[in-house]
C-alpha cells in the first residue's frame, strides 16, 4: 500500500519509493524519508494537502503527490 491509503495515527514503515527518480530519493533521505523509517500520518492541513506526518523524530508536511509515491508496510 502507499502512504496516502494509510489511516491517520497508524504508524507504518517505508519500504520503497515509486515514480521518483533516484536523485530525488537521495535528496529525500537527507530529510529523513528513507527506507525503513517509521512514518505516522497525524493531521491533514485545512485544504487536505499537505499532511502533517511524524517521520522518525521530526514533523514533516508531506504533499499528497508524494504520499502516493511512498510504499509502506504496517508495523
Amino acid at each position: 500500500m502507499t502512504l496516502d491509503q494509510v489511516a491517520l495515527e497508524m504508524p507504518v514503515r517505508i519500504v520503497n519509493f515509486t515514480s521518483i527518480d533516484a536523485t530525488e530519493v537521495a535528496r529525500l533521505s537527507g530529510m529523513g524519508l528513507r527506507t525503513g523509517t517509521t512514518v505516522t500520518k497525524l493531521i491533514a492541513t485545512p485544504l487536505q494537502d499537505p499532511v502533517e506526518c511524524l517521520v522518525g523524530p521530526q514533523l514533516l508536511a508531506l504533499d499528497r503527490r508524494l504520499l502516493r509515491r511512498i510504499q509502506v508496510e504496517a508495523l
Partner: protein
Amino acid sequence: MANFAGCTVEKAVGAVTVAGAELEVVDLPGTHSLLPATEDEKVSFRFLCECAEAGEDLLVLCVAEASNLSNDLALAAGLKAAGFRVALVVNMIDEARLNGIRVDKEALSDELGMPVVLASARTAEGLDAVCALLTSRPPRADPSEVFDFRRASRRELRDLQEDAVRAADRACAVAVSLPHRVVLPTISRSMRIDRVLLHPVAGPLILAAAMFLLFQALFAWAHPIMDLLSEGLAALGEALRARLPAGAWSSLLCDGALPGVSAVAVFVPQIAILFTLIGALEQSGYLPRAGAMVDRALRPFGLDGKVFIPFLSGFACAIPGIMSARTIASERRRLVAILLTPLMTCSARLPVYTLIITAFVPASLRPWGLDGRGVVMTGMYVFGVLMALLLALALKWTRLYEAHPSLVTILPPYRVPRPRELLRYVRARVWHFLSRAGQIIFMVSILLWALASFPRAQRTQEGLAPEAAAAVRIQGSALGMAGRAIEPVFKPLGWDWRVSVAVLSSLVAREVFVGTLGTIYAMGHETRSTQGLVRALQEAKKEDGTPRYGVPMAAGLMIFFAIALQCVSTIAIVRRETGGWKWPAIQFATLFVLAYGLSYAAVRVLTALGA
C-alpha cells in the same frame, strides 16, 4: 558556516576577531542533502568549491540540531567525505537534554573524524569552544582532492549522499542515545498544538486572525509613528526655512534633503513592526505551518505558501513585503514574489484612489444597496490581487517558473521566541534597509527635488499666494517641462500635462500625486482635505468648454496606479534584493506597458459605452 535549511536565503559575510586574529565568517544557505536543487542550495556548494579552487584557508562549520542528528549529520559527513575540512556544532543541546537525548561528543568526533562542539546559541553554551575551533588554522584545501559539486554527475552526487547517510547512521548509533519514548517531548507538545492550529475550521480562523493582527499592526501601530516622524521632520523643515535666507540652499535643505530623510525614515516603523511579527512567527515555528495551509490554494498559479507573507505585507507597503520575501529559499520563487508584491494595493495608493473615487464616482451610486464608492475601493483591492495571480500564471511560461520547490516542508517544533534574538533579527533588517535601500531613496528624492526646482521660473511670483507660487515654479521646472513633453504619450489616456506631471512626481511616493495635483491647481497641500481638489477636478474645463476629465480617464488612471511601479523606493529595494538594475528595469517596463495598455483599453471601452 552552514546551518539548517530555511534560515538563510543568501550568503552573508561578517568579520570576527578571535584571539587577535581577524577571521571572515560566511553564513551560507542551509541544505538538507548534498544534491543541491534550488538556487540557494547551489550558492552554498558553489561557494565551497570556489574557495577550495582558490586555495583559501577554509573551515566548514556545520551547524546541526541536537534533537535531529540522525538527519543533520549527513551533511557534515558528506562534506568531510568530499575533501573539505569540517567541524560540527551540535546546536540546541539544552533542548536535546530536555528531550532526554544524550550526545557523546568524543565518540561523535571519533566516528565522524572531525572536531565536535556541543552548543546552544540561545544560552551561549559552547561559544568559547566554537571560537577556539575558528582560530585553529586549517591547511589549505588541495583542489585536486576536493570533490567538485559543480561538475559532478548526478550519479556521483547520489553515491556521496548515500555514503553520507550511512556514515551519519553509524555515528548516531555510536554517539547518540535517545530516550525510551516513542516521541520526543518537544515534538509531542507540537503535535498537540497542531491539532488546534491545523484544525480544518480553527486553523484557517487562527491564521486569518494572525494575519489580521499583522496587517493591523502595519496600519494601526506603524502609522502613528510614521505620522509623528513625518510631521516632526516637516516641522523641522519649516523651522529651518524660517531661519535660513530664502534661496536654493534653503530649498535644498528644506524641500530636498529633509523630505529625503523623511522618505527613508517613515518606512522604519513599518519594517521594524513587520519583522518583529514575522520573526516571532518564524521563531515560534508557526510560519512554515501557515505556508503549508495556504500552499494548496496557490499552487495552480505556480506559487507556493511562502508568498503569502510578502503579499499580505504588500497591502501595507511593498517595501517590507519585498524584504519579507527573504524567507523564500528558492531564488526564482523569491524573484517571482518580489516582482508581484508591488501589485498588492499598498497604503500609498489609498489617497490617490480616494481622490479619484470621490471626484468621479457619484455618491448616489448604490449597487445592490451598497455604497458605490466603497464597492469601487474594494474592487481596486481585488483587482490588484487578480493581476498578481494572472501575472503569476503568465510567469509559469517563462524561465522564472520553478516546479514546486519541495514536496516536503519541515515543521520545526514550536518554541517560545526570545526577545534578544528577535531584537537582533529586527535590528539587522532595519539596518539593512537604512544602509542599502535608504541611500538610493534619499538620492532619488534629492534628484526629484532638483527636477522640480530648476530651472527657476522667470515669471514673477510676487503677490501670489505660496501655493500659487509653488504651482508656477513646478510648471516652469524641468519636471513641469517633462510633463508637457510626455503629454502626447499620455493623451490617449485622457491625461493633460497637469496629470502627467503629478504622475511623474508620484514616482517619489504614490500619494505625492495628490499633493502635486493640488499644488498645480493652487489648492495647497491637499493630502488631508481633498475636497478643494475634488471640486477642481470635477469642474475643470478644456478650452472648448467641455469637461477636462471624465469617468473613462478616472478609471484608466486608477488602473494605471494599480499596476504601474510608481514608486522609486520600491524600485530601489527591488534593485537591492535582486542585486542589480536588470530586474527592477524589467519589472518597471513590464508593469508600465501593462498599466498603459489596460488603462487605454478601459478608456476606449468606457468612452464607447458613453460613460
